[in-house]
């Protein structure tokens, strides 16, 4: 006979709720961890959201967490199981970055984010699938195969943190980590109907997070609610002496401002985010969400981000240029994939890299190599850096008039698997609303705001530098009055 406990549907609980239950002794971390491991076993065959499941390590960590709870040394996240995107180095565990290149790479060290999570008592369930080296918007470029969207398994979950988004949406993990270079947290969060935040550049250490584009990459949490994201960000954020670009700034308690009323909040609506290319049904969902904010006392202000239309072209210089150098270290010499029987050094390099990287990664490395090559630097790289300045200035001007900026996270809902995989450009355009935020280094969120034909739509909220608390507050207030974020895809209830 099933006990009361086993009948409980822990996967319907947010982290905030699970935390309370753990502290109250209503459930142990081992039980919770086993529960989610079982869900992964039962359901991930349909999603392919995990690359590696670390069952033994998870149960051992859960045991330690239970001991800490008993000892009274536990924090709010102690014993909570989550998944890490496979871009974070995890000591003793394969860290593939979704690539054949690192299929055999057992990391000898932990990323700072992983260390911080461990210190907070968080239990790692496994490593989630992703676009290869985070280059993609659909999770189809993974060496481990495409991830399916739990809301409709014919469609993509978005990318590059598609595995994390799908796992959380299907409640195979209560939350997960992600990274966002041009929208890789927000766009899949939008397509999978979950909540995700990309903090201000420099808020979270990049050490041990395999670099795609160093000046854009930023890690953040992906969860069921703004409240959960706040709890997770409390553990993730903070200074790290190992990352020169990590900010030496005090980290506030991100849950502290959640309950602030929104009366008087000025919401900027960039006209560029509501123009051509936006699916009309998606726009309706977003407009409805904005109405909700009006009801909560916010004021809607029309603004302009005149250069944002160039954010995609700028991004496709900056990111490939940086990645072309960042990915040069994968050369088959010290770790990772090495081709069979190289005849000489050139063969070792070109075949190891040619065979180890997938097509999209190779494309971007080549674009970046071209943009930096002699004779083209000024026309491409330098130009992109100048435009980056202008795009950034647009936001500066906007934030003199408004507190936050809102719009759709993506121009459309999840598309079908295979639909855009032969057309890089149309794939790139699915990040059209998210990229500018990365170029400026600002914090941004995606919050579930409704559905179109059963597919989730995300509302993007961008804020000024270091205003994560405000973003989380704005999202949380909305979630107190809506329940889009509590919806679970039928097949995974």
């Amino acid at each position, binding site marked *: 006979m099933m006990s009361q406990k086993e009948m409980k549907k822990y996967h319907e609980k947010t982290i905030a709720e699970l935390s309370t239950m753990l502290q109250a002794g209503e459930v142990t971390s081992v039980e919770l961890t086993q529960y989610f491991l079982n869900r992964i076993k039962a359901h991930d065959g349909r999603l392919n959201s995990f690359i590696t499941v670390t069952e033994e390590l998870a149960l051992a960590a859960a045991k330690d967490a239970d001991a800490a709870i008993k000892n009274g040394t536990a924090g709010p996240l102690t014993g909570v199981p989550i998944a890490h995107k496979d871009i974070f180095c995890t000591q003793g565990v394969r860290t593939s970055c979704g690539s054949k290149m690192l299929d055999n790479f057992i990391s000898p*060290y932990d990323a700072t984010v992983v260390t911080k999570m461990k210190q907070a008592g968080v239990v790692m369930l496994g490593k989630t699938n992703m676009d290869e080296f985070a280059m993609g918007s659909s999770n189809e470029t993974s060496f481990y195969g495409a991830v399916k969207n739990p809301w409709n398994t014919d469609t993509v979950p978005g990318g590059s943190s598609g595995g994390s988004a799908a796992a959380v949406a299907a409640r195979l993990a209560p939350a997960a980590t992600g990274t966002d270079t041009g929208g890789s947290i927000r766009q899949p969060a939008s397509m999978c109907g979950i909540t995700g935040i990309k903090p201000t550049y420099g808020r979270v250490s990049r050490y041990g*997070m395999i670099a795609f584009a*160093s000046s854009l990459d930023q890690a953040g949490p992906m969860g069921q609610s703004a409240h959960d994201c706040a709890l997770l960000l409390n553990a993730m954020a903070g200074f790290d002496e190992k990352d020169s670009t990590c900010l030496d700034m005090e980290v506030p308690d991100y849950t502290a401002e959640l309950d602030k009323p929104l009366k008087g909040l000025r919401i900027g609506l960039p006209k560029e985010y509501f123009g051509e290319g936006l699916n009309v049904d998606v726009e309706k969902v977003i407009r409805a969400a904005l109405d909700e904010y009006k009801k909560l006392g916010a004021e809607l202000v029309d603004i302009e981000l005149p250069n944002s239309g160039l954010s995609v072209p700028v991004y496709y210089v900056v990111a490939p240029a940086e990645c072309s150098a960042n990915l*040069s270290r994968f*050369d088959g*010499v*010290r770790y990772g994939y090495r081709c069979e029987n190289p005849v000489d050094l050139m063969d070792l390099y070109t075949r190891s890299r040619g065979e180890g990287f997938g097509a999209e990664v190779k494309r971007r490395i080549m674009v970046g190599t071209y943009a930096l090559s002699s004779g083209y630097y000024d026309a491409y790289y330098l130009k992109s850096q100048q435009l980056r300045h202008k795009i950034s200035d647009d936001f500066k001007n906007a934030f003199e008039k408004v507190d936050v900026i809102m719009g759709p996270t993506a121009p459309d809902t999840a598309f079908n698997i295979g639909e855009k995989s032969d057309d890089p450009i149309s794939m790139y355009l699915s990040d059209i609303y998210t990229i500018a935020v990365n170029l400026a280094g600002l914090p941004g969120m995606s919050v579930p705001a409704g559905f179109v034909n059963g597919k989730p739509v995300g509302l993007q909220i961008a804020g000024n530098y270091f205003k994560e608390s405000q973003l989380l507050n704005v999202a949380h207030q909305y979630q107190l009055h809506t329940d889009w974020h509590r919806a679970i895809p039928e097949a995974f209830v």
Partner: protein
Amino acid sequence: MSYDTSKWEVVIGLEIHCQLATRSKIFSGASTAYGAEPNTQACAVDLALPGVLPVFNKEALRLAVKFGLAVEAEIGMRSVFDRKNYFYPDSPKAYQITQMDHPIVGKGHMDIELENGETKRIGITRAHLEEDAGKSMHGSYHGMTGIDLNRAGTPLIEIVSEPDMRSAKEAVAYMKKIHSLVRYIEISDGNMQEGSFRCDANVSVRPHGQKEFGTRAELKNINSFRFVEKAINIEIERQIDVIEDGGKVIQETRLYDADKNETRSMRSKEEANDYRYFPDPDLLPVVIDEAYIEQIRKELPELPEQKKQRYMAEYELSAYDAAVITTSRELAAYFETVAKECGDAKLSANWVTGELAARLNKEELEITESKVDAEAFAGLLKRIKDNTISGKIAKDVFEAMWQGEGSADQVIESKGLKQITDSSAIEAMVDEVIANNPAQFAELKGGKDKMMGFFVGQIMKASGGKANPGQVNQLMQKKLKD
């Protein structure tokens, strides 16, 4: 030199790579100590593991700025690190972190002394911070190359000169001057065997009177003063041969082969060089202020040139002696101790640059390895000054001291080398020599002054070199008047 210097002018610029004397690497906390087992000092950052990041070493910055101040250069108040992209197994990231457009040290200069005694100013274009690569070990691994990354990430400054040198000798003089300076100001151990100090030379030739430079070849990685001179000269000859045979010098990188005394093309490094420099997004601009620079300026020791001027003014040394003594801080310190102890700077300078320098040179020793320390050396000079021994005897005493036979006084005592200053004893010898050489004495008396030398020589000989030559002279004068 076997080329026609009246016809050809040589143009040389040097790029000197100098290892900065830090404990840890420029961007990681791994040790820079020399000689460790392969790859035991290559940490995650040095190995370029996925996800690792660089953090800049404070001391590397300080040492680079110190160099800049010592060559009176502009200091980059905002310097930027760039990535220089190239694939090579000793370069784990496949890019080198270096500085391109905004180096830490801008325009400066270094004066060298030419053989004709003139001084020539060599322009320093810039000096930038960068990381060193690892080492490739060839052969012995089943035909494969072994890679040791201990050296990867070692902090360097690359000191780039203007193309101001006109002969291999000038290039060597400049390199030696820089070498001496970096050790002087203690930013590098300058150890050339260990690769802490090495240079690339850009060499071209042109007929005298031609305005444009000729096409240059870059000679890579020369790690001794001797090789610099040989490599440049052999390259000059090669280029002149090429041109005189109606050919064209091509711009390329060449390697000097010391065994064969030839330079050869490194085509492997040349293929489609496109380094694709861009600012390293993992590192932020390095910003310093005037206060920081002033602090470092205060830490600067007296520089060779300043010391040289002081020695000329304070000790009345010749420009040559002053220059020689100030080539190394240790030598200068040795000299100053000797001068202070013995109270005669000129005598000290003569002996330090003469007998002592010759001896060190012969045994290829540094001043710090001298078998006679400064105090002991001063002890020797004191005995010259107080007439205990003559300069000639002093050379023998020095030799004995070098052989470890004790202090100057001990040697003088045990060998009975003390100068005879007792006038009656000397007079007896004078009388004896006169008595034995009556004819010569008559000639001397008759006005043949040359004979004085003969008598002094004979008397000194009779005394076994121990008579005071001044006293001997005086006594002879007296005998002539008698």
